[in-house]
């Protein structure tokens, strides 16, 4: 069985596993792991690459046709800084796709909802395909949808924490009411977390740390690939659920007899 492809802003993705490029021990290992993951959307921090160097180590290892680069604005603290960074990224990497990340808090790197909404609105007007990284806030997701983002990327738990889907209840609400794809980003630490997000109906997951810092990143990348596919397949096949029959002591519908 083939699962349904994912379409974001008119672009079709066969793989629903999005990956990051940070924290690998070498660019060569990153390349090997990302190829093993089957990922087609790879986020890269503008701050990590030297856009003036055509032979930049990271970019050089990402030069495969299946990789669609998603520059991110990691490091900016305000909407103004994000818009500036986005314009730089567009010019340097020749893509109008952008993972919008604004985290003024250097400790937990939690996203700023106010600045993110402000920046998203402006960036959409400037022609960017905006994928904002946000807290799992259902109302914020609707507000972002209204300003025209291409997807929302709520966090499962604090970035890099590997704690999994601590925001599960809110992710369920977001998935239930979203009109744009929902990509669970941040906190996914194990393939089982990724599978659980996909079983819930998330459109994709983004994984970085859990692959990059694994004992064997290439094997872990493959494990995530399988988990995402299994989770999606289970979602599309409609999961069986536990049955809890209510016991009728005094039937509510007896008046119909």
């Amino acid at each position, binding site marked *: 069985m083939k699962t349904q492809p994912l379409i974001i802003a008119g672009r079709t993705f066969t793989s629903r596993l999005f990956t990051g490029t940070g924290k690998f021990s070498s660019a060569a290992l990153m390349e090997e792991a990302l190829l093993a993951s089957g990922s087609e959307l790879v986020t890269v921090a503008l701050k990590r690459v030297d856009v003036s160097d055509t032979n930049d180590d990271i970019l050089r290892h990402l030069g495969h046709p299946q990789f669609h680069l998603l520059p991110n604005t990691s490091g900016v603290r305000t909407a103004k800084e994000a818009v500036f960074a986005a314009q730089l990224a567009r010019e340097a990497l020749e893509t109008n796709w952008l993972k919008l990340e604004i985290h003024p808090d250097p400790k937990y790197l939690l996203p700023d909802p106010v600045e993110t909404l402000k920046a998203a609105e402006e960036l959409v007007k400037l022609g960017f395909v905006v994928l904002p990284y946000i807290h799992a806030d259902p109302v914020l997701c609707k507000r972002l949808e209204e300003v025209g983002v291409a997807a929302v990327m709520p966090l499962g738990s604090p970035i890099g924490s590997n704690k999994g889907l601590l925001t599960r209840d809110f992710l369920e609400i977001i998935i239930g009411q*979203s009109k744009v794809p929902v990509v669970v980003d941040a906190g996914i630490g194990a393939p089982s977390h990724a599978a659980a997000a996909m079983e819930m109906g998330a459109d994709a997951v983004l994984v970085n740390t859990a692959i990059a810092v694994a004992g064997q990143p290439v094997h872990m990348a493959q494990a995530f690939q399988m988990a995402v596919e299994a989770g999606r397949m289970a979602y599309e096949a409609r999961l069986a659920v536990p049955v809890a029959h209510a016991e009728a002591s005094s039937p509510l519908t007896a008046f119909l007899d």
Partner: protein
Amino acid sequence: MSFRPIFEAHNWDDVKASIYAKTAADVERALAAPRRTLEDFKALISPAAVPYLEQMARLSQQLTRKRFGNTVQLYVPLYLSNECQNICTYCGFSLDNKIRRRTLSSVEILQEAQVLKAWGYEHVLLVTGEANQTVGVDYLEKALHTLRPHFAHLSMEVQPLDEEEYERLIPAGLNTVLVYQETYHQQDYKKHHPKGKKSNFHYRLDTPDRLGRAGIHKMGLGVLFGLEDWRTDSFYTALHLDYLERTYWQTKYSLSFPRLRPAEGLLQPKVEMSDRELVQLICAYRLLNEEVELSISTRETPTFRDNIIRLGITSISAGSKTNPGGYAVAPESLEQFEISDERTPKEIAGMIRRQGYEPVWKDWDTALAPAPI
């Protein structure tokens, strides 16, 4: 963007066939699912769900209590006019019905309002036929201004209006608009509405979108049971609600379940919907959507209404008159349809209390709405 492309992507016959093909396993899965989908809803309204009705009722009761507590809201219709330029095969106000037409003046509206106020009502539903010359947006705006100081919440069930007209009425005090599609069966819709502006199926279908864009606080949806297959029509209502909730996410929604009632000069229902089937539908909607308000009118019998409030209903009308001036001005004028529950609001409130629920007369405040002009 509007609901129309979604509507057009669903073929009536295919939807109907898929509902009737649902099995007991589909129903059991739907009952057990933590979040129910529109496919689950199909299973719950299907004939396969009939043996599970008691279980559905229990779940519906639990979910309703979780969200709404042990309360039932009270509202009352206030008919402003029975003038109408439409021919509807099921309605007493139909243009081809030779009845005496009447439209209340501002003074008469206030006389009516006094009675409703004395009964304790704060939520009033204004109803008219469709006669744009006499009961157009100017008249409606004036009526809202007249009533605004006296009631906490004003709803309206009148002809569909343009977006700009809704934008004009909302600041005048309009909180809620009810607009029923009557039936989502496009071909049969034409048969039931052969003449008048109402015969434009798409204008009616697009009305919730216009309301959403205008920023209405709450809107009510529904179909008229008796015109077409109730299961298929109810699925389309659920589909419409699902789209609206995702799109106009700051708006509240309610659903109503009018079954065709006898009225002057109208046809017999094409489809009979039994009490059991109506209970199944109400419970299915609750199982699909924990937040939506579910409303029942005096079209239903006292026995049915007494029992249904425990199964998912959150608002109920009482003491209703369906003729303009029916409360004080002209109690004997011709009504839109016959009601089935003649009990007074006080008696209904007592019944609600005896069932272990609190009758809620006021659940809104003008301070929460845009400031009146």
